[in-house]
């Protein structure tokens, strides 16, 4: 049976490991390479590395840093941040990324989704969607690391990305990010009900229980988390033991 993946997220600003709250109040919590080495030793299911400054600063991905990360990783690696062209993807795969995550460009230049999947196959393309809840309860997509409102329903964007050839959706609830108060299960449910692609839930994990809920009620295929792994004693293995005890399929 296909296992639920528990995926630590490593956010980078200039090679430094950072974590914020609701995509703001970023603080340095260590070095990227150190975190990668630890997760590799712990044999996590998959690692997500996101360079949150690249697009905002108009930079291409830091291929050298990704190469360094990949050298430390015998685990699957998804890389995002600053990807704007097929060439960026080719270079990331060459230096050791297994999948790429496209966020801003997927919204601003949707044709890129088709180009990437035609060249490298859908399976290596993760479309990353950051959504914020409006006061009226509706969700809206934000791009550029949560600084630009795209004014689109995340469910529609996910569905559009699927029809253009995306292979997976990384769905982050901005309001929950870094709060450790639980995932946005409703948002996740809405997206998993609309698309047939695997959906990685992100934003808000505080306890193993949160991960179980977004899988059981939200329909997520994988759970991504950062703050609870950086700031609490919780490890990906603890999470998987909890999920296993609830009868969910995990790799132990």
């Amino acid at each position, binding site marked *: 049976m296909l296992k639920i993946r528990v995926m630590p997220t490593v956010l980078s600003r200039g090679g430094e490991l950072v974590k914020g709250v609701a995509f703001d109040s970023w603080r340095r919590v260590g070095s990227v390479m150190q975190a990668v080495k630890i997760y590799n030793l712990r044999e996590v299911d998959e690692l997500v590395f996101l360079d949150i400054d690249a697009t905002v600063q108009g930079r291409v991905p830091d291929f050298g840093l990704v190469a360094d990360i990949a*050298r430390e990783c*015998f685990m699957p690696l998804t890389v995002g941040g600053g990807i704007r062209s097929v060439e960026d993807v080719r270079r990331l*795969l060459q230096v050791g990324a297994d999948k790429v995550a496209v966020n801003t460009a997927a919204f601003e230049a949707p044709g890129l989704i088709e180009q990437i999947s035609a*060249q490298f196959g*859908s*399976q*290596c393309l993760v479309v990353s969607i950051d959504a914020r809840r409006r006061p009226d309860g509706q969700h809206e997509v934000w791009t550029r690391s949560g600084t630009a409102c795209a004014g689109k329903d995340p469910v529609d964007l996910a569905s559009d990305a699927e029809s253009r050839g995306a292979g997976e959706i990384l769905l982050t609830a901005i309001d929950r990010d870094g709060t450790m108060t639980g995932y946005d299960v409703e948002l996740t449910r809405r997206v998993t009900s609309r698309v047939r692609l*695997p959906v990685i839930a992100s934003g808000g994990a505080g306890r193993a229980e949160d991960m179980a809920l977004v899988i059981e009620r939200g329909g997520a*295929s994988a759970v991504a988390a950062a703050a609870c792994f950086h700031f609490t004693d919780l490890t990906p293995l603890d999470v998987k033991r909890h999920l296993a005890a609830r009868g969910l399929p995990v790799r132990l």
Partner: protein
Amino acid sequence: MNRVAIIDYGAGNLASVARAVQECGGDACVTQHPEDLATAERIILPGVGQFAEGMKRLRARGFEAALKEQVLARDTPLLGICLGMQMLATRGAEGGETAGLGFIDGDVVRLTPADAHTRVPHIGWNEVSYEAGEAPPLFAGLRDGCDFYFVHGWHLRCARADLVLARTPYCGGFISAVGSGSLLGVQFHPEKSQRAGLRVIRNFLSM
């Protein structure tokens, strides 16, 4: 030292494969030149890509004839990984029907969800169950049903039951390892499957 040619056809996670081969004691040589295959003791055809595009690039760089010479005529051990395994087949449908290398009698077709809850592509860790009940040489030392990392939307349908080494239970079950003798393919990514994956690569290097 065990010289392993890793074929660079412009789409593939070459660095990860090279790194895993080195970790297993092999001398990894990533190459764009078909003539390098003649001096290699082993060849790896890596994955990540789309079938039609992958075959186009492989042919454009002259690897098709070189692979036929080394693998079919001279028996140099070959391991195809993910798309690299799929390209060993007679033909593939991804990106429009395209002829493959034809080393393995079969077709590459889309994974079809068996029920409403099954999501495609198949991404993540899943079991690999030996067809014969005991471990084929490529899996020596690994228990039946070990988890490996997969990331694919297409799979190989092989007309020759005797070439099926292992299957994985997803979308009704698909072939996750194929081959005979020194011609081998795996649908999962051994270079990303941690200890179990490195064991598969080590087994390939000692064949």
